[in-house]
C-alpha cells in the first residue's frame, strides 16, 4: 500500500508541472497587448510599466513560469489590479460559499443518485425500474444553469419555498443551488450505479451467494452493492471537475458570492490574474480529489494494491 501511495504521488509531479505550465501560458494567448486589454487604451505609462512588470511580462516565458511555480509554493498567486488585493486573498474569501454549495450538491448527488440507480437495477424488468431509468436520462440532459432557472421559477417564485437568490438565509439559500447543481449530476450517478449493479448482479459470485442460501437482501447489500459501488466511487473525481464548472453558472444565476461568481465577475472586469489563480486552484483541487479517490479505491478493492502472497497466482484474473 505504501509503495502504491508513493507511486501515485510521484506520478502527480508531471501533472502539477503541466497544470502550472498551462496556467502560466494564459497571459501569452491574449490577442494584442494584455495590459491594454486589462486597463484600456488610456492608461498612463507608469502604471502600464508597473502592471506589465508585476505580471512578469518583462521576463522571458520560462522565467515567468518558474516564478509562477515559486509563487505557488509561497501561497502567492499574483496580484489583482482591479481589486487592488492579492489573488489568494480574493479566492479564499469566495471559497466558503462554494464549499457549502458543493457539499449540498454532493449530498443530493449521493442521496438521490445512488439509491435511484440501485433501485433501477434491482427492478430492471419492472415498470418502476424503467421509469427510473428513463427519467434519469431526461434529468441528466438538464444543463445545471437551465435547471437553476427552472427551479427559481417553480420552487422559488411559484411555490415560494426557497430563497431565489443571495446567501442571506443560511443553509436554506443553498438548497436550490445545490439541487440545480447536484440533481443533473445525480442522474449520472444513477446511470452509472444502475449499469454497475446490473453487471454485478449477473456475476457468478452473486448466484453462488444465493446458492449458499444467503438471504436475498444480504446478497444484494453485502455482495452486490459493495462491488457495484466501486466504479461509482471512482467517478467522484469527475464530479469535482463538473462542480467547479457548474459553480460559475449556478452561482451566477443564484447570485451567490462564491468562486463561480468570482470567475464571472473577473471575466467581465478582465481581471486576468484572478482567473489564472482560480484555474490553477481548481485543477489542483481536482487532481488531489482524484488521488484521494484512487487511494480509497485501492482500499476498497483488494485487487488493486495488494501483493500476491499465495503459492500460485493462476487464479488471480
Amino acid at each position, binding site marked *: 500500500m505504501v509503495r502504491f501511495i508513493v507511486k501515485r504521488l510521484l506520478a502527480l509531479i508531471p501533472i502539477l508541472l503541466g497544470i502550472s505550465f498551462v496556467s502560466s501560458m494564459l497571459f501569452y494567448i491574449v490577442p494584442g497587448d494584455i495590459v491594454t486589454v486589462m486597463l484600456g487604451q488610456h492608461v498612463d505609462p507608469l502604471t502600464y510599466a508597473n502592471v506589465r512588470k508585476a505580471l512578469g511580462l518583462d521576463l522571458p516565458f520560462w522565467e515567468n513560469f518558474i516564478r509562477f511555480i515559486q509563487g505557488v509554493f509561497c501561497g502567492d498567486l499574483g496580484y489583482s489590479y482591479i481589486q487592488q488585493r492579492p489573488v489568494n486573498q480574493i479566492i479564499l474569501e469566495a471559497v466558503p460559499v462554494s464549499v457549502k454549495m458543493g457539499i449540498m450538491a454532493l449530498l443530493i448527488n449521493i442521496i438521490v443518485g445512488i439509491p435511484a440507480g440501485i433501485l433501477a437495477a434491482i427492478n430492471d424488468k419492472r415498470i418502476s425500474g424503467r421509469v427510473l431509468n428513463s427519467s434519469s436520462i431526461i434529468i441528466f440532459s438538464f444543463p445545471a444553469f437551465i435547471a437553476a432557472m427552472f427551479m427559481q421559477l417553480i420552487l422559488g417564485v411559484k411555490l415560494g419555498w426557497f430563497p431565489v437568490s443571495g446567501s442571506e438565509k443560511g443553509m436554506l439559500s443553498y438548497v436550490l443551488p445545490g439541487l440545480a447543481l447536484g440533481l443533473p449530476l445525480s442522474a449520472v450517478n444513477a446511470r452509472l450505479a444502475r449499469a454497475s449493479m446490473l453487471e454485478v448482479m449477473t456475476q*457468478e*459470485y452473486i448466484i*453462488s451467494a444465493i*446458492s449458499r442460501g444467503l438471504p436475498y437482501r444480504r446478497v444484494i447489500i453485502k455482495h452486490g452493492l459493495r462491488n457495484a459501488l466501486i466504479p461509482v466511487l471512482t467517478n467522484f473525481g469527475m464530479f469535482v471537475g463538473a462542480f467547479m464548472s457548474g459553480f460559475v453558472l449556478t452561482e451566477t444565476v443564484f447570485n451567490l458570492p462564491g468562486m463561480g461568481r468570482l470567475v464571472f465577475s473577473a471575466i467581465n472586469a478582465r481581471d486576468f490574474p484572478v482567473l489564472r489563480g482560480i484555474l490553477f486552484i481548481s485543477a489542483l483541487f481536482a487532481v488531489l480529489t482524484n488521488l484521494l479517490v484512487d487511494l480509497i479505491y485501492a482500499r476498497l*478493492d483488494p485487487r488493486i494494491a495488494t501483493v500476491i*502472497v499465495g503459492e500460485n497466482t*493462476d*487464479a488471480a484474473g
Partner: protein
Amino acid sequence: MEILKVNDLTVYFDTRCRPVKAVDGISFALRRGETLGIVGESGSGKSVTALTVMGLAQSIGARIVSGEVWYDGKNLLSSQDLYRQVRGKKISYIPQEAAPALNPVLQVGKQLGEMLSVHLGLSAGDVRRKTAQLLETVELPQPELVARLYPHQLSGGILQRVLLAMALSCGPDIIIADEPASSLDTTIQAQILRLLGTIKAREGLSLILIAHDLGVIYQNCDRVLIMYGGRIMEAGLTSQILENPLHPYTVSLLETYRCLEEGMKQPGLTKSCPPASRENIPDALGCVFAYRCQRAMDICFLKKAPSLTLDDGRTVSCHHLLHLRQDGNPDARM
C-alpha cells in the same frame, strides 16, 4: 431410499424468437448415500438442471415451465421460502469454476464465516474456530492464513477446496457438484474428486456429480444419467451403462471417448455438430438426437421416444429399443 426426487422438470430460456428448451421434461431420483452422475455434452442441459434443483433458475434468467423437486416430503419448487430453508444448509452446490464464484472484495474466510453465522447463528469466536476447522477438513494447510486472504491471492485448487468447505459448512444431506475443478489440471481435479469422495463417505452424504468426462463418472458414480438436448437418453447403474450402452447416443459418446483416449483423428460424435447452437434444430417433434443419429428411422423425427424401463433397472428412450422389444428381444445389443 430416495432423498431427492425430480419429476417432469421443464425449463425454458425465453429468447426473442422462441423459447429454447434447456431442460425438457426430465425425471430422476437421488438415493440416500449414492453418487449420481449426469453426463452430456455442452448445451445438453445438465448445468441448468442442477441450478434449477438448487432453485436458481430465475437467477440465470430461465423459466420453469413445469416440474417438481421433492425433498424431505415437500415440493421445493412450490415456494421460494422452502428453498431459503434448505439452500446452502441441507442442499449445497459447488460451481464449476471457483474464482468467479467468490466475491473478489471479501476475504475467503469471511465468506465462509458468513454462511456459518447466517445459517447456524454462531458467535464471532465460534465462527472463527469452525472456519479454521472446515478449512482443515478440506485438507488445506495453514487454514488461518488462507482465511485471511482474498480470492485473487489464492490458486484455483485452493479456491475449489474453499468452496467445498462452504458446501460442507452446515452439514448438508445433498451436494450438487457441477463439473468441479474441470477447469483445473487433471492432478488437482483428481485430488479434489478424491477428497469429495472421502468426505461423502465419511459424512454419509448423497452427491450429484455433473461431468463431461466419462472417466470421472466411471470412477466416482453409482448411477448415471446420460443427457442430450435437455432430455435423458439413458439412465441406470454406471457399470451397466458404460460397459453395455443401449442408446445410440451413449454408444457414440463412448466411442468418441475411446477414440480420444486412443488418439484417433475423427472420433464418432465430432462428425456432426453439437447441439450448442440450437438455432439449427427445429423444435423437435421426435427424438432430439435424431438429427445426428446414424440409426435414425422415420419415426424418430416424428414421435418422442417413450422412456422404457428394462429388466436390469435402466431406463432408455429410443424407438429402436421399442422395436426390438416388440420383437421380443429386449437385451439385444445395437
